C-alpha cells in the first residue's frame, strides 16, 4: 500500500478474529519497524514483550481486563506490551551516540566526536536529563514514535491493531519486566473482522484547533488544495460513519455473541 493511503487507512480495530493466529514473522516485522524509528540520542527506550493471548492462563487474562479494553484484549490473539526502559541512558552512557559518530550519521560538521560525547553530552546533558521530572514523558514520546511505526506496519501486513492501556501490576506478573521499565500501552494485534474501511475515517478535531503557525492562537492555515490532494492520495478518506456501519457492527455482534 502507498504510504499516504496506509496512514489514511489505519483504524483502531476492535473486532478481531479470535481464532486466527498471527504469524510469528509478521510480529517480527512489526518489531523491526519499531526498531528503526527515529530516536532521540539513539537511546531506544522502547521495549516490547510479545505475549500470545492463548499462553495466558484464563484466570490471569480475566484479571488483565478493564471495562474499556476487555473485549479487545480477549479477541486479539497477540498482545505486544510496550514499556519505556528508563534506565537505558545511564546504562549505555552515550555509547550509542558514538555508534552514530562511527556510522557517519553524527559528524564533526555538527560538532560531534567521541570525546564530545564522553566529556560533555553524557555527563553534562544526558545524565542530568534522566533526573528531570519530565524525563519519563520525554522517553514516552520517543516510544510513541517507534510504536507508531510498528502500528502502521501491522496494517501494511494486512493485520488489524489497536493500542490500549493495560493494568501493569497484573500484566507485569506475567511479563516480568525489569523494575525500571515504565509501562506504556499494549498493541493488540490480530486479523480484523471489520471491513477494511472499518466504518470510515474516525472523527478528528478541527485542524485549526490543533496546529498553529508562529505562536499559539494563530491557526496553521489549512489549504483546501492540499486537502484535496490528500483525498486523492487517500490519506484523507470518507469520514465515519459510512453507510452500513451499524449493520456491520450488528453482524459482528451476532457472530461473536456480543451485546448490542
Amino acid at each position: 500500500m502507498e504510504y499516504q493511503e496506509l496512514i489514511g487507512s489505519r483504524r483502531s480495530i476492535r473486532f478481531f478474529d479470535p481464532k486466527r493466529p498471527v504469524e510469528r514473522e509478521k510480529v517480527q516485522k512489526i518489531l523491526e519497524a519499531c526498531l528503526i524509528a527515529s530516536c532521540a540520542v539513539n537511546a531506544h527506550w522502547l521495549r516490547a514483550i510479545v505475549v500470545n493471548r492463548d499462553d495466558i492462563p484464563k484466570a490471569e487474562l480475566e484479571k488483565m481486563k478493564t471495562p474499556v479494553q476487555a473485549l479487545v484484549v480477549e479477541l486479539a490473539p497477540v498482545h505486544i506490551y510496550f514499556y519505556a526502559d528508563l534506565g537505558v541512558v545511564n546504562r549505555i552512557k552515550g555509547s550509542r551516540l558514538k555508534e552514530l559518530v562511527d556510522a557517519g550519521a553524527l559528524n564533526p560538521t555538527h560538532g560531534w566526536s567521541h570525546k564530545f560525547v564522553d566529556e560533555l553530552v553524557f555527563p553534562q546533558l544526558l545524565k542530568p536529563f534522566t533526573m528531570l521530572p519530565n524525563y519519563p514523558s520525554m522517553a514516552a514520546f520517543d516510544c510513541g514514535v517507534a510504536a507508531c511505526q510498528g502500528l502502521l506496519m501491522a496494517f501494511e501486513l494486512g493485520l488489524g491493531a489497536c493500542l490500549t492501556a493495560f493494568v501493569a501490576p497484573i500484566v507485569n506478573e506475567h511479563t516480568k519486566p525489569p523494575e525500571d521499565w515504565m509501562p506504556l500501552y499494549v498493541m493488540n494485534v490480530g486479523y480484523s473482522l471489520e471491513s477494511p474501511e472499518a466504518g470510515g475515517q474516525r472523527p478528528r478535531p478541527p485542524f485549526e484547533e490543533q496546529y498553529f503557525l508562529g505562536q499559539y492562537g494563530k491557526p496553521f492555515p489549512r489549504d483546501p488544495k492540499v486537502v484535496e490532494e490528500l483525498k486523492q492520495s487517500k490519506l484523507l478518506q470518507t469520514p465515519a460513519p459510512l453507510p452500513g456501519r451499524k449493520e456491520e457492527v450488528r453482524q459482528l455482534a451476532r457472530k461473536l455473541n456480543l451485546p448490542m
Partner: protein
Amino acid sequence: METAGRQIEHCESVRTWRKGLIEQWGGDPLAEEPEKLVALERFCAFIGEDPDTIVKRCFRIRKEDGERVVSVKWRAHYAEKIKEFRDRSNDPDSRRSTADVLSFLIHNGVLLQV
C-alpha cells in the same frame, strides 16, 4: 412463549433499554427479536429480581458529594450471577442470552465484564 418478556416490558429500565436499542440500531430491536426480552426475563427469574432492582443496585449515592456512582460491590455481584446464568443455562444459545442481558445493562449505563 409469545407472551414471554411481556411482564418486564413496562419496567423503567427495560423502557430505557428499548430506547437505547432504537437509538443505536434503528427499528425496534426488542420487538424484532423478542428473544432478547425472554433472555432478560429468564435472568431475572434466575436471580429472583426485577430489572429495575438490578439497575438500581448497580449504582449508589456517594456520601461525600451526593454523586451517583457505580457500585463496585453490586457490579461484581451481578457479573458473577451472569456468569452462573451463562454456565448453568441449558439453552444451547446461552452466550447469546448472556449478551442480551449485558446489552440491557449497557443501555442502562452498567458495563460488566463476564
